[in-house]
């Protein structure tokens, strides 16, 4: 057999190896992508959420709002409800505070009471002022705020929601 020639047997061994390697790559690469797929999916844990028209919110009267976030994990959807109050301090569109209505004590939802001029928690009688400051009861800190908010061109107030 001249130099460089390949025997029939050697040819079949080589072809088997090459075809086998190709099958391995064609199946192996998608399999790895398939297994690692969840790690490359963006997590929708933050977003701008519209909560109302600024024109509907009166100055000095806390405006309640609520929204629902849907978390999708594979084929499972979990929805969570959130709520809060917008307090406008003046006619200036940016002079406002957006509170989360979750009580900082144990997580019940606080309500604005016009007669008491305070946010009252129904669970343990916690009291917060219009600025969210603790006036009485067990809460360890003032009401939480949605610090990032913006006005869209058509006058809708949006807050930046970030899952904690």
């Amino acid at each position, binding site marked *: 057999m001249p130099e460089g020639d390949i025997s029939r047997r050697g040819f079949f061994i080589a072809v088997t190896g090459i075809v086998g390697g190709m099958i391995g790559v064609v199946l192996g690469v*998608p*399999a790895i992508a398939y*297994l690692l*797929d969840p790690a490359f999916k963006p997590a929708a844990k933050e977003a701008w959420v519209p909560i109302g028209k600024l024109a509907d919110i009166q100055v000095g009267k806390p405006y309640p709002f609520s929204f629902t976030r849907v978390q999708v994990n*594979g*084929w499972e959807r979990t929805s969570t409800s959130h709520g809060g109050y917008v307090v406008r301090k003046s006619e200036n569109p940016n002079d406002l505070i957006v509170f989360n209505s979750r009580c900082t004590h144990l997580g019940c939802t606080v309500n604005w009471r016009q007669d008491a001029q305070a946010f009252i928690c129904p669970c343990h009688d916690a009291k917060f002022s219009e600025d969210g400051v603790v006036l009485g009861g067990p809460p360890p800190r003032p009401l939480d705020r949605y610090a990032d908010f913006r006005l869209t061109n058509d006058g809708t107030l949006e807050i930046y929601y970030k899952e904690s």
Partner: protein
Amino acid sequence: MWKKIYEWLDERAGLKELYKNVLDRPEPKGTWWNTLGSASLFLFILQGVTGIILAVYYTPSPDHAYDSINYIMNGVAFGWLIRGIHHWGATLMVVVVFIHMLRVFVTASYKYPRELTWLVGIGLFLLTLGMGFTGYLLPWNQQSYWATTVGTQIAGSVPFIGDFILKTLRGGPDLSALTLQRFFAAHIWMLPAALAGLIGVHLYLIIKHGESHFPTKDD
């Protein structure tokens, strides 16, 4: 260095001897019909690999089975490919195993001293059908639900012990979560374990006896 490692391993595990006996063994002159056994083995391994990675996302529960497969098909990278290979590979495996069996029958390769290889092969064929039957239910769609309803009813039509067989297959009188769970267990644990074991025996016997000659006019 690789040569040294190979030599070390060979000295202890007998790799060269293994290669010679398993992959480089002498064979009578054959045709493409002789490749069907290897094709069946290849398909078994392919089904095993794709099946194992399908189990990463699949959930065997009536609440989630259909949705999880829907997610594999539409939500996971290459999920459609992995499931597609498993789905079509299953059909192909039944076909290839059956043609393999036909070939052995037609060329009379089941005769002495290969009767045991043939008997084990019958077991392998039935287990392959069992894999097809149990796997068919797992998507938990209308087609698979009613196919299994009818299939288990047929098994239940056996005189005297039919009701016992039906309840054993379904895990109760009706098709339920129990049916799905036991079909899943059979599909990924019991039947593959039995298949792998019998394949080992089948291969050992083939290597021991060598492949048979095709019969000639004189035979």
